[in-house]
């Protein structure tokens, strides 16, 4: 719809309820965005202002010192590249494998389906810290420590993703694939040409979810890569901890900014498709 049409409609629709709701949303958004603002602005504050009282949101003088310190202390281009390989690799693999498995769980009536589904969900209920040691032993036996394989392969399929997509596939009307089957399409063809194209919003959501979670994961890259050249930006940030365990706020905020910037850009890039798609088109 055109912007003009939108604004004309909006004018007509303004009611006291809408005004109150909008004000409420403004307040909520302000609270929600405040920590983001503090990260961005503190990243540009000189040391003296970071711990100054009274505090202020905006820097009095803007400085690039914090950002410079990061580039000098961390091989951060390398770390960002690693983050992309890790989070991107996991996301790509997981989307393929999860959707295949989810299709079977949603659309094929096979023996032991219910048991398998419960088992898959149950794997989400054990804390990751508990299986880390046996998992590390396995990855180490495979000779993968300090390789991308160690970061990516163990997460190439994910129980949450399988369950999430299964729920979505269940809701897709079956008349679509019935027609395809009539034409003699194979099960894989139904999956590939009928179900997947209709599942784009769900795949996009899951992809974003997987990418974000892996990008932000701290312990995983820390444990599987002992070589600092193989770390990710998120695990690299821990190295900014100063002497005595003191985290220099300005530098850490600058590091955080660098770490989240690619995510926010990626998100804004897909957000039209992502948020608007989900909301305005929904399911055909």
């Amino acid at each position, binding site marked *: 719809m055109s912007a003009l049409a939108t604004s004309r409609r909006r004018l007509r629709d303004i009611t006291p309820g809408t005004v109150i709701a909008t004000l409420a949303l403004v307040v909520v958004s302000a609270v929600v965005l405040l920590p983001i603002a503090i990260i961005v602005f503190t990243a540009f504050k000189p040391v003296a202002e970071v711990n100054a009282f009274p505090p202020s949101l905006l820097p009095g003088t803007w400085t690039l010192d914090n950002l410079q310190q990061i580039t000098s202390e961390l091989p951060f281009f390398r770390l960002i590249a690693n983050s992309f390989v890790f989070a991107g690799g996991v996301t790509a693999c997981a989307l393929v494998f999860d959707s295949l498995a989810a299709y079977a769980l949603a659309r094929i009536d096979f023996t032991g389906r219910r048991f398998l589904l419960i088992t898959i969900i149950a794997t989400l209920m054990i804390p990751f810290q508990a299986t*880390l040691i046996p998992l590390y032993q396995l990855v180490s036996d495979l000779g993968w420590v300090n390789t991308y394989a160690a970061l990516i392969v163990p997460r190439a399929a994910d129980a949450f993703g399988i369950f999430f997509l299964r729920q979505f596939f269940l809701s897709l009307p079956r008349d679509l694939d019935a027609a395809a089957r009539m034409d003699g399409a194979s099960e894989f063809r139904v999956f590939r040409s009928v179900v997947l194209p209709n599942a784009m919003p769900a795949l996009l959501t899951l992809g974003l979810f997987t990418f974000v979670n892996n990008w932000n994961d701290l312990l995983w890259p820390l444990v599987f890569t002992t070589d600092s050249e193989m770390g990710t930006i998120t695990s690299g940030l821990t190295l900014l901890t100063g002497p005595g365990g003191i985290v220099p706020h300005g530098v850490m905020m600058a590091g955080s900014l660098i770490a*989240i910037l690619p995510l926010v850009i990626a998100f804004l890039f897909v957000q039209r498709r992502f948020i608007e798609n989900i909301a305005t088109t929904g399911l055909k």
Partner: protein
Amino acid sequence: MSLHHPPTRRYRPPAPLGGRRRAAGGRPLRNAKAAAFLAPALIILGLFVIWPMLSALRLSFTDASGFGREEWIGLENYIEVFTDPDILNAVGNTLLYTVLFTPTAVAAALGLALLLNSPHMPFRSFFRTALFIPFVISFAVAAFAWSYLIDPQVGLLNYWLRGAGIELGNVLEDPTLAMPAVAFVAVWKLFGFYFVIFLAGLQDIPSSLYEAARVDGARAWSRFRHITLPLLSNTMAFVLVFAMIAALQAFDQIYVMTGGGPYGNTQTVVMEIYESGFRKLDVGFASALSYVLLIATLLLSLVQFVFFGRREKELS
């Protein structure tokens, strides 16, 4: 996108777990097809998730430190789980956290999704984006930024609130406020994801239903109660169960913000698991505690699925 199944469609909505449907081909053929689709994911999950889980199960009956020799000690670790006062304290804290986090996050997500599902809302796209942004921030960074904002000395939020006559004090060192504070940070970080899932669910409710209800003179609350809630019940079950799982495994922001303090008041079960394993090198005990958490989570999830499954049956 949808995680629920409007009754307007011709097929019968399946129960949240399982549900039966006929597909082409005999059972052996269907099993073979399913195996082909499932194989890649199951190999990965089997090797890198289930196998380590089984190893952890074995370790839970030993005095393993993770390296060196280990001895079978039967149920000793499990007995300790149920008798150690520190663990009981952590269980209580975890339940409190779950009760603080889950309803708040789900209610906030649902409320905002309802507001922003309305086509009459101005700046809808902006608000939707803004509300989702925290989800892309890592827990560590979120915890760091919030701690800085509520720092009793230089915290901007404290300063502003003081100006408004509200004295926040040293929130993270306050035995009663610390837990709500760490739960709040989790709500802040995670509600955006639930919000998007609710938006998608709402989008799938046919507007014709609301129009019909309006014609019948149903008020907003009544429409919400009799149309929205029932048709969202699968989405709701999904969000509630995963929010609860996230709550029961609370760790990241607490580790950064309070380290479990003040005096153990924000110490959660996963904090105990981490501390027993990675600080005290008592991996056997950490594994036993993890399995108790797994069983408890499974039971709580089943209760929820059964509850929502039954409601759905009653309604259809």
